[in-house]
Structures are given as structure tokens and as C-alpha cells.
């Protein structure tokens, strides 16, 4: 396909980047490599830097995304993300971001401005949809590995996710302070590091470990691990699972995944004082 053949399209026309003009990087999160193609070397350099710990040297990718950069346009920056699917394709619309990919072909196109947050959004949505089909999910939580076991610390904004990351002892490996990647393998779950950072402003380590427990965070006057009823645990888990799609069948799937997770992974309330002693309980 020549460049001339691409001219004259409307503002969003899915189109593949010609092989000769293609620069690419493979970003692998949760063991799922995604190739991102672009014609802009500055944008490529930005991606390579932003996802440095998650750039794969292997050329193989499960998904392939072609990025077309557009100038900033006036849009509703506070509008919510809209994720829908029709005729075997997913469509993401968020402000000046437009992304579309074929489910079967695992190939898609993105039209966005040259800002890193749009790519973050696309990757989060893509991975959340992939995980939904296999019983896993992305979760608003920090996570870390200690003694070969992974622990999740979940809660809404201000609950203490980043605090738990900041207080972690040197022998803990931080996977993320904001968005955890939870993948199901048989009857166990693994937590993977992600590049999605919160206030800590640094990506997690690109590694994984079997999940030992999920803690639902509450700040308090003492440190204690307390029981939680299954129904409350699942409600709080569902509130913190990242899921964007307007699709009732997928929502049901995520609910069942949350129930399965709760039946296999211990979940507790973690009441904590924001100092390092809380980590004495996390082993």
C-alpha cells in the first residue's frame, strides 16, 4: 500500500503502516507481547523510554497495533472512556484517542496525539479484555513479591496503595503501586509487574510470583489483619477491578472471575498504621 493510497481518508480510517516506513517496539506485560508500530521516531523513543523495563527483545507479538499521530484537538478531556464492540471489533473512544482492533486477527489501529497517557490507556484496556477471557483482571492495587510470594494491596484512591509501596522493606520486589496484573493459571493466580505507576512515579519490576493473599486496605490506629465476609470481599474486589467495556456478557464474566478468585486466594482486611511495621505481617 503506497502513501498516496492513504491520502484523502477521513479523520479516522483504519489503515496499516507500510512495512518500509514502520518503526516498532514490543511491549510485554503479563507475558503478553504487544507490538506497537509507528512512523514517528520521536514517538518510538518515548515509548521505548516509558516502557523500558517491559520492552521485549523477542520479535514475536500476540497483538499488533499501528499508531497514527494526530495534532491535539479540542475535546472533552473529562469525558469517560467508551469501549464497545461490534462485528468482531473492539472500539475505544476517549477524548482525542480512537483505537480499534479485530478480535480474531489481533491487529488494530490507534489514532492519538503524541502523549504517553493514551498508549497507557490502550494497553490497559487491551490487557483487561484479554484477561477477562481467561479469568484474570487488572486491579487498582499495589503489589509486591516477598519470600517468593506475591501480595496485593487494594483500595480506592487514598486507601494507601502507594503508601504500602513506599514502606516496603528492601527484600520486597515492587510490582506496581497502582495497577496490578492478575493472571489465572489453573487453580492458582500470579501477579505480574506493570509499567503503570501511580504517585510513586516509577514502573514496577517486570517479574511475577504466585499470589499469596489480597489485602483490602484501611488506615487505622493499629496494624491488624482482619477477616472479611466473602460477599463484602467480592463487592470491594469488583469496585477495584479495571473494566471498561460496555458489554453485559463480559461484565458477567468478570463477576464470575472475581468469585473464582475469592474462592482460591485468601482475602483479608488490612488495617494499618502508615509506618514500616505493617510489613512485619506480610510474609
Amino acid at each position, binding site marked *: 500500500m503506497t502513501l498516496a493510497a492513504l491520502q484523502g481518508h477521513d479523520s479516522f480510517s483504519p489503515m496499516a503502516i507500510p512495512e518500509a516506513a514502520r518503526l516498532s517496539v514490543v511491549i510485554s506485560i503479563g507475558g503478553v507481547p504487544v507490538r506497537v508500530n509507528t512512523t514517528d521516531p520521536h514517538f518510538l523513543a518515548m515509548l521505548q523510554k516509558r516502557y523500558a523495563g517491559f520492552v521485549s527483545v523477542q520479535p514475536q507479538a500476540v497483538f499488533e497495533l499501528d499508531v497514527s499521530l494526530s495534532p491535539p484537538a479540542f475535546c472533552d478531556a473529562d469525558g469517560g472512556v467508551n469501549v464497545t464492540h461490534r462485528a468482531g471489533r473492539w472500539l475505544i473512544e476517549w477524548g482525542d484517542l480512537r483505537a480499534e482492533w479485530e478480535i480474531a486477527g489481533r491487529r488494530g489501529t490507534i489514532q492519538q496525539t503524541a502523549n504517553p497517557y493514551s498508549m497507557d490507556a490502550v494497553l490497559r484496556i487491551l490487557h483487561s479484555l484479554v484477561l477477562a477471557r481467561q479469568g484474570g483482571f487488572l486491579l487498582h492495587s499495589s503489589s509486591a513479591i516477598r519470600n517468593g510470594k506475591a501480595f496485593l494491596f487494594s483500595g480506592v484512591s487514598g486507601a494507601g496503595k502507594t503508601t504500602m509501596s513506599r514502606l516496603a522493606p528492601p527484600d520486597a520486589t515492587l510490582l506496581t503501586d497502582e495497577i496490578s496484573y492478575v493472571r489465572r493459571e489453573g487453580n492458582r493466580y500470579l501477579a505480574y509487574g506493570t509499567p503503570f505507576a501511580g504517585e510513586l512515579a516509577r514502573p514496577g519490576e517486570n517479574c511475577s510470583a504466585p499470589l499469596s493473599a489480597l489485602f483490602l486496605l484501611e488506615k487505622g490506629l493499629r496494624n491488624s489483619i482482619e477477616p472479611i*465476609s466473602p*460477599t463484602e470481599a*467480592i463487592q470491594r474486589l469488583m469496585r477495584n477491578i479495571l473494566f471498561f467495556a460496555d458489554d*453485559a*456478557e463480559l*461484565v458477567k464474566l468478570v463477576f*464470575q472471575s472475581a*468469585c473464582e478468585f475469592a474462592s482460591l486466594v485468601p482475602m483479608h482486611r488490612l488495617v494499618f498504621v502508615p509506618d514500616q511495621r505493617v510489613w512485619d505481617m506480610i510474609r
Partner: protein
Amino acid sequence: MAEKYISRSSEIAARMLGGEMMVMSATDSTFFTLNEVASVIWQAADGRTPLSEIVAAKVCREFDVDREQAQRGADRFVDELAQYGILLVSEEPIDSLPFPETQ
């Protein structure tokens, strides 16, 4: 009073956990936790069995409760879930209708 027939909506996901039935609306993710009595009514909501029969055969028998009191409670419960689209309620067996009715 006209008979009521109740059927679980297809737009929900449900799971029994620790003796409680957890129901989630797939359209707006609202959660409902049903106690034992409510869970019995929920599980019997097949669209073909009248609510009065569910109350008599299941609720009164399993929980040793007065029939009138049980029926009042069941009516309130059913009407509340119907408002959220969780249960479908009709004066006829629901699978005999061309489209499910909701209140």
C-alpha cells in the same frame, strides 16, 4: 389478588457464597446480597411457579413461618428486585409471554 409469576432476569450474574446469594446487575453493576429466605425465592423463580406456591412450599415449610407474613415479605422482596430489573414479574407464566414483562 392476581397471581404473580417471577423469573430471574438474564441480565444478571449470581453466585452462592458462604450461604448467601450474591446477585449483580450486568447493566449497572449494582449488587444485591440475598439472605437465606430471599435466596430460596430467588432459586425457585423459574417463571412457571406462582409466587404463592413458592412461599407455601418452600418458604413456610423450610423456615416455619406464618404464611401471610411470609407472603407479605415475599411480595415486598420481589417488587424491590423488579424495580432494579433483577427479577421479572408477571401475572402470567413468563415463558408463555412473547416478551418478558418488568415492573
